[in-house]
């Protein structure tokens, strides 16, 4: 404190920190994983057996959202009063609507996971859950459709959450929910392939896995286009919005963007497509590409949250 008006610490515009960035990542990852898992089941000819991708989504979906919600609750200043948010609703608030969506999404995700993994449960010593899974099986279609719709909502919600704040030019943009939904899809696909490869020992030439892989390029192209749209919107809006573009050239978040988001997140998967097919389809190569995709999405959430909050109108 070296001025006469007092401490300035509370006026730092960066209010939400990395814990929230991890939550935004986890929620997007969970939603993307579920969307890909269910979506591919609908497009697959074989509906009798549970594909390794769907089984992976059945694990990634509930686990990621649970970890994300844990981050969210423990980031509250009154974590043990979190129940207040479950009984008081202000429907003008994006967060209140998100709480409702998550309140339905999380248990449905677990229920759907039990259905998909019903044959694995006894193998993991969770046989006591089998009757529950069998009971839920009759509701499969309804749960599946509802979970799919809610997953779109949850994926986009994390974008709406921060774009609702008109104090920050970079966050207050229409493209953010779409960007987060799409980058959630690429994270979900990556996580699904990691889990399918490691837990369900799927062959790296598996048909479903290759089909999911084929989604990656269009998803990534859409992501790049949305990012380009975001920066263009800021540039042409001018004033404080254009000043926020300095985050691409200065400071630590420029490094996170160019190295993390562009280099690791987009560069590594794109360059890997130039490798000979034999190398590209090995387990190791696929795991490496998936992990760099996940790192890129995590970096994107950090960049948007921190750089976005650093520039204020």
């Amino acid at each position, binding site marked *: 404190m070296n*001025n*006469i*008006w*007092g*401490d300035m*610490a*509370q*006026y730092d*515009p960066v*209010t*939400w920190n990395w814990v929230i960035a991890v939550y935004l990542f986890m929620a997007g990852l969970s939603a993307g994983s579920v969307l890909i898992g269910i979506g591919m089941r609908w497009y697959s000819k074989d509906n009798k057996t549970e594909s390794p991708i769907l089984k992976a989504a059945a694990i990634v979906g509930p686990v990621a959202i649970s970890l994300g919600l844990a981050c969210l609750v423990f*980031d*509250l*200043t*009154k974590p043990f*009063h*979190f129940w*207040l*948010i479950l009984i*008081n*609703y*202000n429907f*003008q*608030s*994006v*967060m*209140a609507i998100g*709480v409702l969506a998550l309140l339905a999404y999380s248990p449905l995700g677990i229920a759907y996971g039990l259905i998909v993994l019903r044959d694995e449960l006894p193998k993991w010593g969770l046989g006591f859950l089998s009757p529950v899974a069998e009971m839920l099986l009759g509701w499969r279609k309804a749960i599946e459709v509802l979970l799919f719709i809610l997953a779109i909502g949850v994926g986009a919600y994390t974008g709406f959450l921060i774009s*609702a*704040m*008109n*104090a920050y030019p970079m966050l207050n943009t229409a493209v953010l929910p779409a960007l987060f939904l799409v980058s959630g899809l690429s994270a979900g696909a990556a996580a699904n392939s990691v889990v399918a490869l490691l837990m369900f020992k799927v062959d790296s030439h598996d048909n479903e896995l290759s089909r999911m892989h084929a989604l990656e390029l269009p998803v990534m192209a859409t992501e790049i286009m949305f990012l380009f749209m975001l920066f263009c919107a800021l540039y042409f809006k001018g004033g404080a919005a254009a000043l926020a573009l300095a985050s691409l050239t200065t400071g630590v978040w420029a490094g996170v963007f160019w190295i993390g988001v562009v280099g690791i997140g987009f560069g590594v998967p794109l360059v890997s497509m130039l490798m000979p097919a034999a190398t590209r389809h090995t387990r190791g190569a696929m795991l490496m590409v998936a992990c760099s995709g996940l790192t890129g999405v995590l970096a994107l959430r950090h960049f948007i949250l921190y750089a976005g*909050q650093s520039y*204020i*109108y």
Partner: protein
Amino acid sequence: MNKRYVMVHDENKCIGCQACNVACRSENGTPEGVTRLQVRVEGPFGDAPNLHFKYHRVSCQQCEDAPCVKVCPTGAAYVGEDGIVTIKEDKCVGCMYCVAACPYKVRFVNPETKATDKCNFCKDTRLARGELPACVTVCPTDALTFGDANEPDSEVAKLLNTKPSYQDKTHLGTKPRVYRIPTKRGGIES
């Protein structure tokens, strides 16, 4: 007619003495390290010898369209019947959404209650007793005027009708109720 409490800060009269800041702390028991109200001394602007400072009051702007109220998930941040934006401490979970959403960055987490906190024009204390907010009463140069702008004969209504004033960040559509009378460069004529 509805009340429309506004505050006018005359930046010509302000000398940046922080008496308002101290009175606010004492009236509201604001804990160490956080602040509801501060007057930032910005500048000097201009070329010597015609330098001037700007006195910038930083406190809740009591927006008529308040972003903090819109984003609050539990309704802890609310607009009272008197139009004043306040916080129901026991409904606040401390998600910091309002702190982030406030374009004026005047909300903070009170380290004692763990709820968000900010200026509410001394609503529960002095205003409830029919007194003026602490900052207004204590100001040695009478730079602050407070009252109901919907009352045509009130001092604030007259002031806003006769002097040029501005508000901060009006382009965000928040309709702040803290008005500022800009400094006339070159000192006060007597």
